[in-house]
């Protein structure tokens, strides 16, 4: 099981770029890396997913080094509405076995005006 380690919390000012790093030393060959965002009393929302190198979409970028033992979610020019908990997951949806889908406690990002 490729469990993850993230900072518990981060603060950032509006308009800044925020980078949240996740460690996953035991990532398996077939595992994807996925990030979710969650606001209070709502379900998590998919942000971005990658396997290697760099992935970018309209919301964020995901940087994955060659050894894939870590990944960095980059949020450009954050706003107050980006205040949320961010979860890093690694795994393969189709693997069988208990506890394959592990969210952890996430990183609580607070954006300050």
């Amino acid at each position, binding site marked *: 099981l490729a469990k993850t380690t993230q900072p518990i919390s981060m603060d950032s000012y509006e308009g800044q770029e925020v980078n949240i790093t996740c460690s996953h030393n035991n990532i398996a060959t*077939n595992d*994807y890396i*996925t990030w979710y965002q969650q606001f209070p*009393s*709502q*379900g*998590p*929302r*998919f942000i971005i*997913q990658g396997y290697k190198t760099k992935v970018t979409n309209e919301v964020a970028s995901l940087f994955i080094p060659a050894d894939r033992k870590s990944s960095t979610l980059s949020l450009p020019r954050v706003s107050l509405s980006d205040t949320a*908990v961010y*979860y890093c*997951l690694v*795994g*393969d*949806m*189709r*693997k*069988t*076995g*208990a*506890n*394959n*889908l*592990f*969210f*952890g*406690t*996430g990183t609580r990002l607070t954006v300050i005006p």
Partner: protein
Amino acid sequence: DAGVTQSPTHLIKTRGQQVTLRCSPKSGHDTVSWYQQALGQGPQFIFQYYEEEERQRGNFPDRFSGHQFPNYSSELNVNALLLGDSALYLCASSLDAGGSYEQYFGPGTRLTVT
């Protein structure tokens, strides 16, 4: 295109009772996963259903059971409720293809056990 829907939104039950929560997946999705999220914690995986069968199960007792119907909707049943079962129960749907990890979550059902 409707996303994942869950019912009810909130529920209050007494210890020892039984509860059934319902989930309709996003259109086109065939896999449903259930999670329990305690206050201040990340979601914990309960189980996953695909083709009307439980495919994966997390570390939850047999009091937690589920079902998936031919239209891919799903139910989560919890028997003999304990105070510790109070949590937000999340349903997530996905398409079983290529190891992609993209799941779409519903808004959750807030269960309070008194």
